[in-house]
């Protein structure tokens, strides 16, 4: 019996292997077919154009093809994709769901301030537009300096290994104002001030009345290029370094490895600030809510302040 059983196990094993390889071939097939990448280009005052380019095309070659590189304002140029936008949409829904759970938690535990705060942030998110970006400001000058910093369209921007993704290049002037989100009562934008006066913006943020459910010892700063800092602002911790999260075009929806850094008090156009929840008031299962909201706000467009 055993002599018969051994070859049969081998055969079964080989068949299994064969099966796996067939499955993997089938799964790999679409990737192999993806020899071109669609790129939708939305430049200001120009009709939208879609290009189909070889997937191996490098980003700098694409840009050199579609815009006058010498005169383009690269700080106005963003790169996103349809798949990344879908992923951001899921994050958006997750945040709203978490805020709903927070409202239920607050209502159940008789925490009216927390309930109101969750409703407030939920309203802000519902009234805002979000546009997912790999690059918030395409770094043209470093892209063309070396191949390592000049990604291929397909390999570097593949999201969830989808082959039918369409890259989107958008030209948009940066917002000249500084915007505040979160648990403060005044949410209207503050005009970014000239260099020597810009610290006044921070002063104005601190002068505003924050919700009792707000964290009053840290504030989140989101820069126009997607970099984020969790800045200590209370009397007891203001001297400590901030926690900085550099934007990564490879993980644009994540907060990648925070490192200590010093953030200057100056504000710049298109900076966003988020006054988050006091984490001591958040239930355990929503402990990461502030971070999740900041990951979403990194991709925020113009809020409507309704």
């Amino acid at each position, binding site marked *: 019996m055993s002599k018969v059983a051994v070859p049969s196990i081998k055969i079964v094993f080989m068949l299994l292997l064969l099966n796996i390889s067939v499955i993997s071939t089938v799964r790999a097939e679409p990737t192999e077919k993806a020899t071109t990448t669609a790129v939708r280009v939305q430049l200001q005052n120009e009709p939208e154009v879609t290009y189909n380019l070889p997937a191996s095309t490098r980003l700098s070659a694409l840009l050199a093809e579609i815009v006058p590189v010498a005169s383009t304002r690269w700080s106005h140029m963003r790169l996103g994709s349809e798949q990344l936008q879908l992923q951001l949409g899921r994050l958006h829904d997750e945040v709203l769901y978490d805020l709903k759970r927070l409202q239920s938690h607050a209502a159940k535990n008789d925490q009216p301030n927390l309930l109101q705060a969750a409703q407030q942030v939920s309203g802000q998110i519902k009234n805002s537009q979000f546009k997912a970006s790999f690059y918030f400001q395409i*770094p043209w000058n470093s892209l063309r300096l070396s191949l390592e910093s000049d990604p291929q369209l397909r390999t570097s921007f593949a999201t969830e290994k989808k082959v039918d993704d369409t890259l989107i290049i958008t030209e948009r002037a940066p917002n000249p104002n500084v915007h505040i989100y979160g648990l403060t009562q005044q949410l209207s934008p503050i005009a970014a001030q000239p260099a020597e006066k810009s610290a006044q913006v921070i002063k104005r943020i601190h002068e505003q009345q924050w919700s009792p459910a707000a964290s009053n010892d840290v504030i989140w700063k989101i820069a126009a290029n997607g970099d984020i800092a969790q800045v200590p602002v209370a009397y007891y911790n203001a001297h400590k370094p901030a926690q900085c999260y550099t934007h990564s075009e490879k993980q644009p929806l994540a907060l990648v490895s925070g490192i200590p850094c010093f953030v200057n008090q*100056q504000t710049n156009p298109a900076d966003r600030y988020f006054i988050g929840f006091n984490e001591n008031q958040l239930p355990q299962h929503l402990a990461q809510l502030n971070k999740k909201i900041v990951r979403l706000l990194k991709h925020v467009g113009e809020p409507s302040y309704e």
Partner: protein
Amino acid sequence: MPNRNAFNNWLKFSLVVPLVLIVTGCGTRVDAMAKTAKYAIWGAPDVTLTQQQIEELPYAAQYVTLEGQARAMLVLGFDDSNQLHWLSGQKESLVTQSGRIISMVNVDKPHDTIDASIHSTAYLTDDPLHCLTQPTVSGQQNCPRQWQAEISTAPGVSQKRYQIKTTFDLGSSAEVDLPSGHKASAVKLTEKVISQSQGQTWHYTNYYWLEDSTRRIIKSSQQYIPEFPRAHWLEVKAYSKHLQQDTES
């Protein structure tokens, strides 16, 4: 006997070969150690090209010395509508317009003398250097002498902006020794810079040597913000476009 001879030969071989390897290996190591020690004490050596190397160089090039660092040679990589991108072998780039540093890429690295790099300079069209370096403008005396600009450091949560106010003073003629061996006659411009950010003020004095016939800047010493050290520029090989302007005019 043949066995003993063979054994002796093998013994000699087995002693001599490792000895030779050890000695030569040590030689290389000692040499490398000496170079490392020299590098640690004196830093990286200045880049210096011979006159022949400069003559054979196919690119426009500049010597650039950032204060506290060794002299590097940068070659012209791109000309984006008169914004000249000067590249180093380490994929760093300094961008100049009318001889003024206006931005840079990949320059700020750990453990150097640079605290922040200049990301952008706004209001460049009003820069007096633009007028002063135009070969077609009749008389430098008519160019504006004052300029206001805004300089931003690298984008991100630590980005800083500086308000810059400068005043120019046209100096007397001077001779500049160029690395190519030529002596160029030039006008020395002095620029007084007031740089302000967050209630603090810094003062700098910059110098530019304007070559007489082409009005290109052949030498300069520039600083605008405290985070980026003073940079000394010296032309190694002129950009052919600037020389053609001379012929055309």
